[in-house]
């Protein structure tokens, strides 16, 4: 059973996306598409033919597979419903962040490869955001890693809930990092194809058919993974420490509640905030970075 917990992320990630969209639509007074809409979209895209620009090289064709497999590899490291995760010897939190970075790197290359103006724009913006987000994510995870005495994510999740000022600061910084990484308002607008505002959409604009399905699916998975990591690291309540059926059933139920909570939170932020100007981003991301820095410092000073 513990060998297959990463499948939960692969299979359920479009559902989370659908739930967020539905909740957001309801909050804004619209009916919105059903929560299974992302699945239909993926199936539709998988059936379709692809249009590929003839100036592209092998990078453009390899990128969807690299992005998808790297995200699957990342989800194998993360404990979802039990900390008895057999693949956690593969890597720790630091490896995980760089597996994400590998995907972002190839996406940026591929969007440059198609040689359109929007691709270059999107990749340049995405790299700017990625540079600002990466140290922030690292620092906020380090707080938890120091207190657990390990960078292994299962070990951190297994060390239980720690309630201290430094962890609250780190969690706040991590939430900002999640918003930036998943391309949500106020950093990026996931619903638009307007050239002035798009970051993530600009990068996948040249993709169609099966490749687009892979890219989108990887994006949904990354979003769910980041939610899972946030709970594993900062709020590991209810996650099972064994592989018995009763414990797993319990922890699955709690996991669903946690994901639902994150979906509501994201929908709430997206409905109440306006998108920020791109050049204002360094100030909010810088603020979150300082918060992560303070969390590590406070942890070192207070010892908790």
């Amino acid at each position, binding site marked *: 059973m513990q060998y297959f917990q990463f499948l939960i992320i692969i299979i359920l990630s479009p559902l989370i996306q659908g739930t967020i969209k539905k909740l957001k639509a309801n909050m804004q007074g619209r009916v919105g598409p059903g929560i299974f809409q992302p699945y239909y979209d993926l199936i539709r895209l998988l059936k379709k033919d692809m249009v590929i620009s003839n100036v592209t090289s092998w990078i453009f064709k390899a990128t969807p597979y690299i992005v998808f497999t790297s995200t699957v590899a990342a989800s194998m490291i993360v404990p979802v419903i039990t900390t008895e995760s057999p693949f956690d010897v593969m890597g720790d939190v630091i490896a995980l962040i760089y597996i994400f970075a590998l995907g972002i790197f190839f996406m940026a290359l591929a969007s440059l490869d198609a040689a359109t103006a929007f691709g270059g724009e999107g990749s340049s913006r995405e790299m700017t955001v990625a540079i600002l987000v990466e140290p922030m994510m690292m620092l906020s995870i380090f707080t938890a890693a120091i207190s657990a005495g390990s960078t292994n994510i299962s070990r951190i999740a297994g060390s239980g809930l720690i*309630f201290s000022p430094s962890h609250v*600061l780190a969690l706040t910084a991590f939430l900002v990092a999640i918003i930036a990484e998943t391309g949500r308002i106020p950093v990026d607008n996931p619903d638009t194809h307007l050239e002035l505002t798009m970051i993530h959409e600009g990068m996948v604009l040249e993709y169609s058919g099966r490749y687009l399905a892979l890219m989108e699916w990887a994006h949904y998975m990354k979003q769910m993974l980041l939610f899972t990591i946030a709970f594993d690291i900062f709020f590991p309540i209810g996650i099972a420490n064994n592989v018995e059926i009763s414990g797993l059933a319990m922890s699955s139920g709690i996991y669903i509640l946690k994901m639902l909570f994150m979906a509501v939170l994201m929908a709430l932020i997206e409905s109440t905030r306006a998108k920020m100007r791109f050049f204002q981003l360094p*100030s909010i991301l810088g603020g979150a970075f300082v*918060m992560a820095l*303070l969390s590590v410092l406070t942890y070192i000073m*207070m010892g908790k």
Partner: protein
Amino acid sequence: MKNWIGAFSVIDFISVGILITAVAMNALRRLESCVKAYTLNSWLLSSLIAIVAFMMGETHLYIASFVTLLSKGILIPMFLRRIVKQIKVTHDVDPYISNALSLTISGILVAVVYTSLKEGIFVAGFSKNVLQISIAVIFIGLFIMITRKKAITQVIGLLFMENGLFLAGFSLTFGMPTVIELGVLFDMLMGVIILGIFTIQIRRAFASADLDKLTILKG
């Protein structure tokens, strides 16, 4: 109740909150939000004193807490808000350095203070971390004063410094004698009123609250 305060490390949370409101000052550009950050800082300071008073059973600290709340939490912010309204400046435009840089520098300041005061030599009994935080707040207040152009933001920087000093004194000695504290607070109140009137006068004479413009006086 006492166990509850200890278990949830309420004192640590409040002292970190005091630090965060000071650091957040560096990211705020609207004068109203700067005043709000200062108000929140003073309320946290007052509640910290009240909680320590409760934990230690020192009744005279309740008076200090109440006076802090009244002067720094209510009167001074009220007055600052009026000045902001009168000088009709809502944005602290073109500071000397950018938002992100000033945030980073204040983070570095905190790091420097934390590392140089690593071991709490002076322990007042309720927490060994409050002194570091108070010194960090003093430094951040000083930093705000030297990086802002507007007279009113510099006043807020001074007020942050004073909050830091108050917290430092409190963490070392459990509060100075009430008479001295009252004197300092009254001084502060008068200082803010005088500086506020100055700001309004500067604004009236130069049509700007920007202190850089004062060099125009040179013949």
